[in-house]
């Protein structure tokens, strides 16, 4: 066989030059009369090694990285030899990958994302075929038995949400995939959509079968152009192959799917705001109840689930709920794809069963900070998540353990800062972000965050520090108690953790760095 060469077509790899590397590999191979088959796969998620090029001469895949355009000629001259300085050995043996528990992300970077054949050859649509043999109630029961909880942030049991929609009366029901992924430090949804889009499509079809919905929407943030392209392509191919449409695999069941783009508003990740936006309105948060499960899109019963929640479904239906529930601890079952980001030496996607420690994630997988300086603070769970200090790194990665220390796992984003961080600046940014992104419906959030920025500015200038610290505390409490949604209600979490764990940063003299 000719040599197969894999170069990722995925945002982070491309952001580091994978596109040029791919072009150059083709050109240089041709110049040498070397026959290769160039495959544009997804990323394996080892971002510090991107562009990560793999080759397969029939004996298994071997990795090279990070590959710069300047390395291409020597790679070809060495025939991708194991003695090339960038050689990393067999991909599957890379410890960083081998020590993960990749369930949802088993296919990540292995396949060509938009190839239906690749998808089917790796167990794709097996879950759907099983689902077509089951009743809606049996499907909902499988998801309940898996213990899956929503991966978008609130960790609500997915099976119970589906049951509510199944039981609700409605001539039309909807499956809405929340692909707004607005949290800084997160990219797992993006990786699903760019690198394994059929898995999300399959999960949504199964959700439709389970609750009796025939229309699905993926609400995708505008900031993800490549995910958009891959999803549209995958949907068109899935339609052509009879996985979507009026007669799914000749079962007589129907499901249609469409991508809708957001327009740069963090609040549209909140499910009711998202529904308003899908209806063509401003993304103003709705009061709950009614729950979207009862009165959702256009007032009809709607499942709103995160990308990762829906992406977990095909494997639950293929391998059985017991297999999925076999991972994890206590009430946190299955796996969570953690995303190592910020100032981290070995950033990327780490899928693990719940129950490992934050320290393992940051030190063993992450290899500490990228700058080589000591890690000082870590923000877990996006911009509304608390900052943690190294003293808390032994906390177990499960929903309850995090909530016990006033923190959240959220969507699994882990953002690392070294000791050059100014935590008063970070607290100020949290408030500033809330000013920018508040939907404006309630006063504590809309006005409180503006006041928050001003108060922190005064503290940073050293004006009436004690009085202003007391004011900041009051303000945080008002926001927590008086906000309609978690935007205003949780913005104080990072702020409070910053001044509680790092008080010295709030006590500098004005102007002192």
């Amino acid at each position, binding site marked *: 066989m000719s040599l197969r060469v894999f170069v990722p077509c995925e945002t982070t790899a491309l952001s580091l030059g994978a596109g040029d590397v791919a072009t150059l590999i083709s050109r240089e191979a041709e110049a040498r009369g070397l026959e290769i088959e160039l495959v544009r796969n997804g990323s394996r998620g080892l971002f510090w090694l991107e562009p990560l090029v793999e080759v397969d001469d029939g004996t298994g895949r071997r990795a090279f990285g990070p590959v710069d355009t300047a390395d291409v000629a020597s790679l070809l001259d060495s025939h991708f030899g194991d003695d090339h300085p960038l050689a990393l050995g067999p991909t599957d043996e890379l410890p960083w990958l081998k020590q993960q528990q990749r369930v949802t992300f088993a296919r990540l970077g292995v396949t060509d994302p938009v190839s239906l054949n690749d998808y089917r050859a790796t167990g794709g649509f097996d879950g759907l075929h099983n689902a077509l043999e089951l009743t809606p109630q049996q499907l909902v029961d499988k998801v309940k038995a898996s213990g899956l909880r929503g991966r978008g942030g609130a960790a609500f049991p997915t099976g119970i949400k589906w049951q509510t929609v199944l039981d609700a009366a409605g001539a039309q029901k909807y499956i809405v995939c929340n692909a707004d992924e607005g949290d*800084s430090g997160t990219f797992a949804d993006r990786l699903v959509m760019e690198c394994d889009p059929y898995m999300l499509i399959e999960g949504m079809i199964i959700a439709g079968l389970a609750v009796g919905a025939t229309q699905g929407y993926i609400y995708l943030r*505008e900031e993800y152009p490549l995910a958009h392209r891959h999803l549209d392509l995958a949907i068109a191919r899935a339609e052509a192959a009879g996985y979507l449409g009026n007669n799914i695999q000749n079962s007589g069941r129907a499901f249609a799917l469409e991508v809708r783009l957001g327009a740069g508003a963090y609040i549209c990740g909140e499910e009711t705001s998202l529904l308003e936006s899908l209806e*063509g309105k401003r993304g103003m948060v709705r009061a709950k109840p009614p729950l979207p499960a009862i009165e959702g899109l256009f007032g009809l019963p709607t499942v709103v689930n995160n990308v990762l929640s829906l992406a977990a479904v095909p494997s639950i239906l293929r391998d059985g709920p017991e297999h999925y529930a076999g991972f994890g601890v206590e009430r946190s079952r299955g796996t969570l794809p953690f995303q190592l980001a910020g100032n981290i030496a070995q950033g990327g996607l780490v899928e693990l069963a719940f129950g490992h420690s934050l320290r393992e994630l940051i030190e063993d997988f992450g290899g500490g900070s990228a700058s080589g300086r000591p890690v000082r603070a870590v923000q877990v769970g996006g911009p509304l998540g608390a900052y943690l200090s190294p003293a808390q790194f032994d906390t177990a990665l499960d929903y309850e353990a995090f909530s016990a220390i006033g923190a959240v796992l959220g969507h699994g984003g882990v953002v690392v800062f070294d000791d050059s*961080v100014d935590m008063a600046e970070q607290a100020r940014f949290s408030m500033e972000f809330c000013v920018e992104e508040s939907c404006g419906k309630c006063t504590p959030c809309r006005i409180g965050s503006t006041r928050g920025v001003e108060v922190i500015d005064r503290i940073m200038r050293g004006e009436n520090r004690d009085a202003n610290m007391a004011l900041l505390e009051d303000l945080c409490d008002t926001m927590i108690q008086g906000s309609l949604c978690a935007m205003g209600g949780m913005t104080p979490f990072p702020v409070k953790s910053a001044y509680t764990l790092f008080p010295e940063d709030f006590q500098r003299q004005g102007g002192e760095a």
Partner: protein
Amino acid sequence: MDETQAGVPDTVETIVTSLKHKPGALLPILHGIQDHLGYIPDDAIPVIARALRITAADVHGVVSFYHYFRSEQPGRHVVELCRAEACQARGARALEAHAKARLGVDYGQTTTDRSITLKPVYCLGNCATGPSVRVGEHIKGRMDPARFDRLVDDLTTYKLELN
């Protein structure tokens, strides 16, 4: 983006007609218009309102709610700098100061030669290899002041080649 003024109403009309039957058609229509024209002209608003049977104030309210939609023609390139936490941890604040000084503009403004409009963005999902910058469909990682200057040079040189 090079439609003549005379072409604008036709473009808007065509997009509105092709999308107005979709449930929740407003955002798809606005995206369609901005994709084609680079912004949402004021003249488009009554056309959209009539087609969707809502008020012009409703349409305007939606356009102004979303950071992505703009009511004015941007520069030839829109450069978005990520301001969010993971990029901050890699030096986004310094990059931001450099970019504003280099281009001589603040966020939301366009350089005097109309080549670049600078915008903030909150996360591009490229958070392990920041600071991140987006130009159109392209996202660039590990941006620093020197690479930013090269990027700007490339973008402005391209403009000269076109003319």
